[in-house]
């Protein structure tokens, strides 16, 4: 009997099921586990309380990112609670023999940036972290998703979690993205179509010409935001772009091991005729630069459009009005021309070298608007070094911008990088929830190009007007 055609997701998932529980979850084996300072300490306490050991310390990697300062990293961390969390990560990692890239380590950076750039993330893996944007790693054809702290404790103590298998969603985007339209715009567009809960219960495969032609950085941006439509994760079949990105990275397989791995990775694609539970098809020509106007990532529109009415959007009118009220916006407002106060470029969504190249392409030869405060935060020290090597640092400096040090920063505002109450920030991060970037802060999610256009004009501006 010939084998049933399988999806990429099925192939990777089924290869990691240790045991199936009837009318229950699968016992699911984890190849790579990333930990950071915020969601791991209670898991380590749990190990101690139960007198358990870490089963495979070499499959877990620690990096400090959520709660780190982005200036003066050589000085002791001022906030005693933050310092305590960073210390706990260091102590716990040392105690159990886990690799730890703490503050000051040249490999340090945002967990979803450093995993791929050091070759820890590979196709066909299962990858988890106590962070919902773990979905980023799906760009490599891995099954990667965020978990809670109880599950962090499970992975540490048994290298497994208990997980019901999600349903399968295929999202095709064909055609070519237009001038000034980036991977971030593609994913914001998809989320706006599906809503912030539209993919809950599903795991996504992204396919079609747009993703085939996309760089690994772009694919990571797209997969990163899978969670913003409710999906646990999203993945893209590995191809020559993937293999070229991985080859030669520090922890990537080498020599004979590379050849063996490559042969396996080439099998990681959805077979013809394999079934998905739901399929969506979009046309790249319909996607313009996007911006959000509300308080969840599904509340996004093309930058040239006006804020829709509650009737058009549907759902609870009261919740919609609460959202616009928080933002200080009104139905039918144009987004173009809205005054902004802050610009944030960085995060696990858009904190990679390509994002800073894009930002620099617009600010080059222009000046930062006087009233705008800009926080430019590389995703890792390796990205920071590239920014300097490629001359982007000089372009930024000339335009009046300062470069900060790596970390999650204003994406979640756990450290001091908080947008003040009532202020508007164009952010390349992933969430525009109330208070996400600081109590009372108002976030407009957008691409690095839209962020750059806002930074130099001081208002929401269509980046296509500034591109030669």
């Amino acid at each position: 009997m010939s084998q049933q055609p399988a999806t990429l997701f099925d192939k990777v998932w089924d290869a990691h099921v240790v045991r199936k529980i009837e009318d229950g979850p699968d016992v699911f084996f984890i190849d790579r586990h990333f930990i950071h300072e915020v969601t791991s300490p209670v898991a380590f306490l749990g190990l101690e309380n139960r007198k358990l050991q870490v089963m495979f310390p070499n499959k877990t990697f620690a990096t400090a990112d959520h709660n780190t300062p982005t200036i003066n990293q050589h000085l002791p961390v001022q906030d005693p609670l933050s310092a305590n969390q960073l210390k706990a990560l260091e102590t716990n990692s040392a105690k159990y023999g886990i690799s730890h890239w703490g503050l000051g380590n040249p490999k340090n950076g945002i967990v979803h940036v450093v995993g791929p750039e050091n070759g820890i993330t590979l196709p066909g893996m299962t990858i988890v972290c106590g962070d919902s944007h773990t979905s980023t790693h799906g760009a490599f054809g891995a099954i990667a998703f965020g978990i809670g702290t109880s599950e962090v404790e499970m992975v540490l103590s048994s290298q497994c979690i208990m997980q019901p298998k999600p349903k399968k969603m295929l999202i095709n985007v064909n055609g070519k993205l237009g001038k000034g339209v980036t991977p971030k715009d593609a994913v914001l567009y998809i989320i706006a179509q599906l809503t912030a809960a539209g993919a809950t219960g599903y795991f996504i495969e992204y396919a079609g010409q747009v993703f085939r032609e996309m760089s690994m950085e772009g694919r990571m941006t797209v997969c990163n935001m899978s969670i913003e439509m409710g999906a646990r994760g999203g993945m893209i079949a590995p191809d020559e772009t993937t293999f070229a990105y991985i080859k030669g990275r520090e922890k990537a397989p080498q020599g004979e091991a590379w050849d063996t791995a490559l042969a396996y990775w080439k099998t990681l694609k959805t077979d013809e005729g394999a079934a998905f539970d739901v399929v969506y098809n979009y046309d790249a020509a319909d996607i313009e630069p996007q911006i959000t106007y509300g308080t969840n990532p599904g509340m996004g529109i093309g930058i040239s459009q006006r804020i829709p009415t509650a009737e058009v959007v549907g759902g609870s009118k009261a919740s919609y009005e609460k959202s616009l009220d928080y933002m200080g916006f009104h139905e039918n407002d144009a987004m173009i021309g809205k005054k902004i106060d802050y610009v944030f470029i960085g995060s696990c969504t858009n904190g990679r070298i390509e994002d800073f190249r894009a930002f620099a392409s617009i600010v080059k030869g222009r000046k930062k608007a006087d009233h705008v405060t800009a926080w430019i935060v590389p995703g890792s020290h390796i990205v920071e070094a590239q920014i300097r090597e490629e001359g982007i640092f000089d372009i930024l400096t000339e335009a009046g911008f300062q470069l900060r040090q790596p970390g999650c920063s204003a994406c979640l505002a756990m450290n001091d990088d908080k947008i003040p109450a009532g202020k508007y920030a164009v952010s390349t991060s992933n969430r525009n929830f109330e208070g996400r970037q600081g109590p009372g802060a108002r976030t407009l999610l957008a691409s690095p190009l839209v962020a750059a256009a806002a930074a130099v004009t001081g208002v929401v501006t269509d980046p296509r007007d500034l591109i030669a």
Partner: protein
Amino acid sequence: MAYDKFTVLTSTAVPLPIENVDTDQIIPARFLKATERKGFGDNLFRDWRYNNDDSPKQDFVLNNPIYTGKILVAGKNFGSGSSREHAAWAIYDYGFRCVVSSFFADIFKNNSLNIGILPVQVTPTFLDKIFLAVEADPKAEITVNLEQQSITIAATGESESFDINSYKKHNLMNGYDDIDYLQAMKDEIRVFADKSKY
């Protein structure tokens, strides 16, 4: 962490008829700095519950003494966003044992089940009925029976069944958790790991 067994819960309920309540609202990131699981209930819904000067916002439901109880009833897509289990801890620490909504975000649902909070997904129609019943009479009691997988509005007798897989149901009814289960199968995991590609 062990938790109380969940069998039958009869309680008044706290209504929060807002959609897309994300985990940043349930507990903002700046309150995630602890290294122990303690006191998160104090900051549950922090920015909806308190003004900047820490005075309570009178119009928020948790500050309205009329509404009390161990059941939180919320609008659809509850718990979206971040994977922070702190959100579930805050809800538990505040005193809730059950959250009712017409739709839950996946990670929040998993986190809740892992710490002994029962997420009960009802139809949008039944959710509206609960909101109406509780708003009409804040003393209205709701009964959640895990064994029977039913939720009932006491005053009207209206009832609906809810889904939960039998593995998780068994765990909640007995106070077991997944770590116990996984520890018991470590030999099997080790054999599996030996064949692993990575």
